[in-house]
């Protein structure tokens, strides 16, 4: 089955991972900007990162026949440095017209601090001014419920933000309702220990339905599995769910959300094959 991984940090993965993902049916990915494992020292560090995301990664993904899309932002961890964050936010528009840039993300909260909320709102403002899609990072573990609710509060206070143009990521059993009930898209991250397992993600689908929801691996430089989405597909099949239902979650839903971006130029794999 063809699938799209709507959230994976391929800059942290090796080329062999792209190849494995392609063999498992991955035809496209979207890569949000995130924390590199250390705080960058200047706006130039981010400029280079955004060049990597928009120039080299699409090329490297293409070697395995995978279409690469990306999101730009300063992440919640580095948002503690408000002055640097503002420099990055001012620089982002230089990259917004590049092919494959889907919007602003992954923005959100990490420890639910004041500085994080200041920078979050300013990036929401940036997205609103440029009419960009938004990809939201929600905090981990004990911070997640509180942080998700704070994020939803901030999104709803801005009348320019349309929930159907926002994807709230890393939802779990206790937060999926806040995202879906307010009309946002949401995504579950299949990630060892700290997020969802494939079976819990399948449970959430059975509980909350398959509209406006997707799954991703969020593969990065930590312990993570870049082929976690196929594990979810397998779990859904094991439970007897239809191929059409599974395809909706892992392929059609990401397409429906991404197509709201004018720079989402996707070639369906069937068409790509015909061209070859």
């Amino acid at each position, binding site marked *: 089955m063809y699938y799209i991984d709507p959230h994976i940090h391929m800059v942290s993965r090796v080329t062999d991972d792209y190849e494995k993902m392609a063999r498992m049916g991955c035809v496209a990915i979207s890569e949000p900007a995130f924390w590199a494992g250390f705080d960058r020292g200047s706006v130039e560090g981010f400029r280079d990162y955004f060049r990597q995301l928009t120039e080299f990664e699409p090329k490297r993904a293409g070697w395995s026949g995978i279409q690469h899309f990306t999101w730009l932002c300063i992440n919640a961890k580095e948002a503690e440095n408000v002055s640097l964050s*503002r420099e990055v*936010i*001012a620089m982002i528009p230089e990259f917004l017209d590049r092919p494959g840039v889907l919007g602003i993300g992954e923005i959100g909260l990490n420890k*639910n601090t*004041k*500085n994080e*909320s*200041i920078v979050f*709102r*300013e990036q929401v*403002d*940036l997205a*609103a*001014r440029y009419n960009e899609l938004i990809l939201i990072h929600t905090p981990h*573990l*004990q*911070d*997640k*419920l*509180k942080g998700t*609710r*704070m994020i939803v*509060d901030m999104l709803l*206070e801005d009348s*320019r933000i349309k929930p159907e143009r926002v994807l709230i990521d890393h939802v*779990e*059993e*206790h*937060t999926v309702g806040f995202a879906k009930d307010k009309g946002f898209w949401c995504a579950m991250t299949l990630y060892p220990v700290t997020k969802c397992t494939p079976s*819990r993600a*399948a*449970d959430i689908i*059975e*509980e*909350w*339905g398959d509209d406006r929801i997707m799954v991703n691996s969020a593969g990065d430089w930590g312990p993570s599995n870049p082929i976690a989405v196929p594990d979810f597909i397998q779990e859904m099949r*094991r*439970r*007897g*769910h239809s191929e059409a239902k599974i395809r909706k979650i892992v392929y059609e839903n990401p397409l429906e959300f991404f197509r709201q971006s004018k720079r989402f130029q996707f070639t369906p794999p069937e068409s790509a094959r015909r061209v070859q």
Partner: protein
Amino acid sequence: MSGPMTSIQVFEQVFLQTRAKVLEVAASLDRLARTEGFEAVQSDSRYQQLRQSLEVLLGSGTNRAATIQQIFSDPYDPAWVSRFQATGERPELNPTAPH
């Protein structure tokens, strides 16, 4: 809403996995209880969260995972915006100003 499988089918699928996970929890708690200074851990709020969660497992209904998630979550204060504003660290946005 539920999946397409019957109760018996789901039970057959999850029994061994769940048995293994329950045993893993039991062994972890035994390992902890064998250590010196265990009393200090018993007053740790995280240990209390584990105990509360185990009590939830023995309940009924279809919402146990979400309930346990809430046990491990910081409380949400709906007045957080005014708290942040009161410190002067939440300035109003001016959408027309360049950043």
